[in-house]
């Protein structure tokens, strides 16, 4: 900092007036520098403030999605419900009226008289429509339970869940509410006695799409996204690296390669929906890949990721010092050996970073998937990449448009899951880079 005053001559400094003027000037310079720094800090703080606001709203809205209200009921699996044969046949187990068993247990726990039709209906609507499947699964897993009375945790209806999470406004007049005063009374009693409680929500990870918030999960979307990322990796990394290495190491510098280079840079900036249109025309209509399949989604996203990988790989390959290549050639390596043994291994950190940034971008895309039918309601889990699937951001979008209140928190919850996925990928990228990075 004192350097700036060095060139000043002693003659100038000796005059008090001049010295005063110089000091004012220096002060001004320091002030300018402080301001310059302050702008930088302000810009960072501004960005951070938005990030904090975004994260805090998502977390505040979404953390409740990882809890789910459920009734713990003593379900009496009496023999009578499973037909006359002992032990009951497989079809008896499938066809048994589990809803009736669930309701009977619920009425007992809430103290509702099943003979009162209106009350019974109001009480039964507090249980998730999926309760029967839950009991059936328990029985299928262990048929020896039949004839016994067992405690089971059965999902509550989405409206009950919103109540338990405090998103329900009791001051609204009864006829405008989803739950009546009577139902609230039962629920308060059940919550006080511990029959109704919030549990960790494993369902949000394991269920597929559902029209009911309590049985909706990101399972199918997660598997779909995973398949697509795998396909993107398998298709775009080899193609991208091969193209980049050729362009950087072998290709002559002429009009053709210049055109290719400009086009690759342009492709990286093309709106993603265009890739969706391309995918629809080529993969679905021409090649006959099944619509909505994770395979076609993966291929479209691979095309979209290619330019990112090519650009990153070219930069990484170009950054390897020429001395490495020359040394390899000097000891008698062929051009190919110099590249595969020296240049590419040294460029790996850069390639990895480019790949993971490309993958992360692909993971968050919905627009191209719309065109190829992946914005869809998919209940069944995809067994192979050829089966219909959907993707994490698509699931978020679909929940955001649903009418039921329970989907609001799930939208934020799914966003958190997507963010966690992204953070994992980015951390992997950083770690891999640290591991392989070499400085010279």
């Amino acid at each position, binding site marked *: 900092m004192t350097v700036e005053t060095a060139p000043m001559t002693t003659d100038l400094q000796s005059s008090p007036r001049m010295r005063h003027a110089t000091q004012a000037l220096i002060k001004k310079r320091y002030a300018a520098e402080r301001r310059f720094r302050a702008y930088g800090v302000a810009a960072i703080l501004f960005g951070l403030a938005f990030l904090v606001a975004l994260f805090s709203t998502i977390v505040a809205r979404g953390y409740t999605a990882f809890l789910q209200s459920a009734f713990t009921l003593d379900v009496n699996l009496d023999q009578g419900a499973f037909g006359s044969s002992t032990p009951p046949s497989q079809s008896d187990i499938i066809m048994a009226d589990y809803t009736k068993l669930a309701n009977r247990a619920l009425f007992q726990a809430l103290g509702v008289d099943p003979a009162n039709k209106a009350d019974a209906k109001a009480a039964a609507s507090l249980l998730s429509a999926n309760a029967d499947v839950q009991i059936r699964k328990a029985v299928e897993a262990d048929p020896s339970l039949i004839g016994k009375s067992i405690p089971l945790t059965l999902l509550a209806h989405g409206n009950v869940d919103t109540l338990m999470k405090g998103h329900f406004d009791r001051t*609204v007049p009864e006829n405008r509410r989803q739950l009546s005063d009577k139902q609230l009374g039962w629920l308060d009693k059940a919550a006080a006695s511990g029959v109704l409680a919030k549990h960790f929500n494993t369902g949000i990870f394991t269920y597929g799409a559902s*029209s009911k918030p309590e049985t909706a999960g990101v399972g199918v979307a997660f598997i779909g996204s995973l398949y697509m990322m795998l396909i993107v990796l398998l298709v775009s990394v080899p193609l991208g690296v091969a193209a980049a290495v050729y362009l950087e190491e072998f290709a002559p510098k002429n009009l053709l390669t210049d055109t290719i280079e400009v086009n690759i840079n342009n492709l990286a900036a093309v709106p993603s929906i265009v890739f969706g249109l391309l995918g629809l025309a080529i993969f679905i209509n021409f090649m006959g890949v099944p619509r909505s399949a994770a395979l076609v989604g993966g291929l479209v996203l691979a095309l979209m990721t290619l330019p990112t990988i090519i650009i990153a790989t070219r930069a990484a390959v170009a950054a390897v010092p020429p001395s490495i290549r020359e040394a390899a050639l000097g000891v008698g390596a062929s051009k190919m050996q110099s590249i595969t043994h020296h240049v590419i291994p040294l460029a790996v950190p850069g390639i990895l970073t480019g790949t993971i940034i490309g993958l992360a971008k692909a993971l968050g895309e919905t627009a191209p998937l719309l065109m190829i039918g992946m914005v869809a309601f998919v209940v069944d889990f995809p067994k192979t990449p050829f089966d219909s699937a959907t993707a994490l951001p698509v699931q978020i979008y679909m929940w955001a448009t649903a009418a039921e209140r329970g989907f609001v928190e799930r939208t934020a919850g799914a966003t958190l899951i997507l963010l966690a996925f992204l953070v994992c990928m980015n951390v992997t990228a950083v770690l891999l880079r640290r591991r392989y990075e070499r400085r010279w």
Partner: protein
Amino acid sequence: MNSKFIAYTTATAVGMAAFACAAMARDQVKVAGSSTVLPYANIVAEQFGKTFSNLKTPIIESGGSGAGIKQFCAGVGEDKIDVANSSRKIKDTEIADCAKAGVTDIVEVKFGYDGIVFAVDTGASEWKVEPKDIYLALAAEVPKDGALVANTAKTWKDVNSDLPDWPIVAFIPGEKHGTREVFEEKVLHAGCKATGGDKLQLAKAEGKDDAEKKKAADKACNKVRKDGAAVDIDGDYTETLARIESNKQGVGVFGLSFYENNKDKLKVATISGVEPSLETVASGKYPVSRPLYFYVKKAHLGVIPGLKEYVEFFTSDKILSADGPLVEYGLVPLPDAERAEVQELVKSGKTLATAAK
């Protein structure tokens, strides 16, 4: 090492793509279309999967009635969808397009009605509107002293002295929505007629013959003002709801089922004195409603496993009756006689008459 890895992965990728080309037989029903019908179709698909454990759950895509029908009309074959959901009747031009692509036998299934409601924030006082109030508030040109003038109404009170003194801001469905058509036809046009605007528009309309003039006049009647009083919402009802939550003096257009699910946040307006509900829409007393349809490709019936079962399941009493799951969500059920008719139609597989080419 690296070159081996690259060669191996490339081979895998190429192999997978080649495998995909040998298209596999589809064992899953595919549906696309209206976003209004989507939640109903989702419920049916979910129940279908639960009921028929040997069949796969259908895949339901959304994207709008028009887009769904376009996909539906792309042709016959395993790679084309089986069912198109629609919140409006299929147009003659679309039937012709279908026929061109070889989709000649289409079964039309009407499965219920949907009401369209006006709603305001719960804090507001009672809203009672007539179609003519909406027309006078939102149309681009309104009749005044026997002539058409540009709409200058600032508050709802200017339009009807019974309405509150709120600035006019209405969130109406964007033009790509099927709901917009119903809004124009049943609200704006009705209001236009009631105020005599249609005659004035007709007198002004240009065209070769009367039919063309009438068309131009209808179009002019449906034109909404562009000065910010009528806000097009291209997203979904959740967006409209968010707009009303931030602007407590806004009026929004919703589907009846969306309103039923968000009753604690919205207050519904009566139209011509009738409050929208399942009963009033079903009986036809509430004026702003529309039928909901799905269209089935007959050539796929019996070819795609599960399609026949899906259509029969959708139209069964279990799904469509007044205490079924769709009505619980907010669908206005078909009257019993009409439902029996639809079930009969599904059984016989009667197709739409192919329109003149």
